[in-house]
């Protein structure tokens, strides 16, 4: 089944000419054609002829022996990465017809490595959300169903929900995601796939539509930990166009997977045993601890005392940055414009019509916390607390190599649930936000199903720029868990 492969397996098949890149691409286009109506994982599917032309070019490179590390691998691209000549919407009405005349650095890197793009995947509008419910192009549906309840549509998580659903359902071998407070890891956990948020600065932000600049980081969403390493190698790297991009060398990340984890010290942060944590998640966490012990890790209790302030800090800093980052959507140079007799009238009409409610609310919240009289109490305070959160991690990492936590407090929930109380929705990110605040790398690995058959993920958090250890530990969990389940809606199912 070509749509069920890992990147690593597909690459092996292409290298040995077991199948062609064209066949692989066609299989995925067929899967998208069959499943996208139900899942709405893609906002834009590239024209078949273009996809096949890319695949043919990849086949030619395989024949010539010049194939890159992602060559011929069909993937989805979160619709937050600007793609030259291909509509890029950020799942917003504001950019419904925006066709960038430029290619983001991350997608350019992937193209340079030979990847074949299938289309642009759905997301929460401007990446603001944890359920993929705020997309102007309609919600993405999680391909997983509760056991015995095929009727209830579940959320794929967010904001990279289209990417996670596509990868889980066999509509792409892998996909790019972006993570600001958990937007790669949480949907990966909800959809039973692997998601890696690298260290802030690993992947260039140039050409990726900004949500919160000090937090946004692109990363891979894949079916295996080794795939995440492989794809990150292609995505990452220094970019002179991004002042916050790191100029450290990019290691061969995939080689870290399978390395022995014996003797590594794994910290278990006490504060993550938060109230509201579901029993199945706790059980899975305990199981993960046991697996790592069995693999030779030393498990240590640690404390990250400011964990509980991570979310509130995040919900000041991220909206503040977004309120400023989204000021450029003003109806003048690109995107939607609503006419009005005055300049302010154009601004107000355009931004009221172009932004959905969640985006509007976050812009307003961000405007408020930065405004005169409130800056010190909110924004400045949050930046100071952010320092404390970062110090928590630094202190913990003096004693341990990685941290192990659940990725999310529960499994995927139903569409429409948690919608009325924004704070309830925000709590989905409680375990993912702190690593974003500190800028450290974190990986979500699917490790099992809960009693209603939904996937659960565990999160491995590492030191700045130490993705390799994170991947090694993630690989050990993956090997121990042997997670091979597939969702109810899948390209391979009932076909």
């Amino acid at each position: 089944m070509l749509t069920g492969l890992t990147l690593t397996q597909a690459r092996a098949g292409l290298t040995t000419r077991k199948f062609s890149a064209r066949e692989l691409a066609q299989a995925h286009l067929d899967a998208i054609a069959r499943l996208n109506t139900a899942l709405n994982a893609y906002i834009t599917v590239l024209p078949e002829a273009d996809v096949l032309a890319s695949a043919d070019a990849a086949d030619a490179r395989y024949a010539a022996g010049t194939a890159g590390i992602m060559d011929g691998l069909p993937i989805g691209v979160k619709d937050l990465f600007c793609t030259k000549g291909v509509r890029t919407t950020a799942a917003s009405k504001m950019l419904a017809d925006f066709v960038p005349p430029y290619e983001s650095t991350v997608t350019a890197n992937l193209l340079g490595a030979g990847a074949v793009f299938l289309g642009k995947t759905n997301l929460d509008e401007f990446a603001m959300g944890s359920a993929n419910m705020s997309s102007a192009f309609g919600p993405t549906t999680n391909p997983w169903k509760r056991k015995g309840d095929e009727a209830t549509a579940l959320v794929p998580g967010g904001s990279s929900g289209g990417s996670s659903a596509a990868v889980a359902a066999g509509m792409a071998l892998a996909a790019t995601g972006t993570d600001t407070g958990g937007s790669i890891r949480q949907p990966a956990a909800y959809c039973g796939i692997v998601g890696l948020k690298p260290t802030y600065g690993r992947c260039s932000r140039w050409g990726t539509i900004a949500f919160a600049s000090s937090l946004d980081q692109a990363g891979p969403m894949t079916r295996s930990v080794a795939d995440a390493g492989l794809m990150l190698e292609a995505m990452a790297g220094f970019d002179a166009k991004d002042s916050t991009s790191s100029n450290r060398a990019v290691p061969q990340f995939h080689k870290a997977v399978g390395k022995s984890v014996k003797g590594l010290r794994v910290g278990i942060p006490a504060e993550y045993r938060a109230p509201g944590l579901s029993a199945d998640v706790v059980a899975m966490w305990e199981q993960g601890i046991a697996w790592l012990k069995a693999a030779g890790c030393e498990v240590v209790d640690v404390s990250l005392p400011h964990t509980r302030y991570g979310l509130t800090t995040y919900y000041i800093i991220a909206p503040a940055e977004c309120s400023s980052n989204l000021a450029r959507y003003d109806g003048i140079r690109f995107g939607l414009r609503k006419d009005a007799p005055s300049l302010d009238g154009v601004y107000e009409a355009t931004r009221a019509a172009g932004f959905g409610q969640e985006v509007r609310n976050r812009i307003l919240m961000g405007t408020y916390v930065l405004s005169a009289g409130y800056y010190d109490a909110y924004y400045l305070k949050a930046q100071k607390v952010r320092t404390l959160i970062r110090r928590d991690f630094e202190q913990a990492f003096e004693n341990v190599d990685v941290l192990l936590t659940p990725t999310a407090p529960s499994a995927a929930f139903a569409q429409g649930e948690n919608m009325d109380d924004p704070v309830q929705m925000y709590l989905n990110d409680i375990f993912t936000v702190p690593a974003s605040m500190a800028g450290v790398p974190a990986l979500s690995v699917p490790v099992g199903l809960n009693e209603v058959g939904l996937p659960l993920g565990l999160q491995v958090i590492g030191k700045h720029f130490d993705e390799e250890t994170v991947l090694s530990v993630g690989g050990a969990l993956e090997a121990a868990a042997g997670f091979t389940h597939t969702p109810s809606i899948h390209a391979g199912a009932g076909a």
Partner: protein
Amino acid sequence: MSLDLATTRRIAKLARIGLEEHELEATRQKLNGILGWIDQLAEVDVTGVPPMVGTETETLRQREDKVTDGNSRDALLACAPETSGPFYTVPKVVE
């Protein structure tokens, strides 16, 4: 801190998001709920703690003073919802 309607209106104006009167109250309530939750930050003692700007993993990089960009007017203007000749246009602004 509790958010009143006047402040909500002022923020919406600052952010240039045109909200109808009835939307303002709903927005006020939503934001107020979030603010109530955020107020727990007040209990954190940050005496002597410096604010974290960015993620502080690198120092600011600078580029050489070279002209490397420009002359792409057509490609840029093609993205604009309204143009006139070589210009972007807006409703007449009185200064």
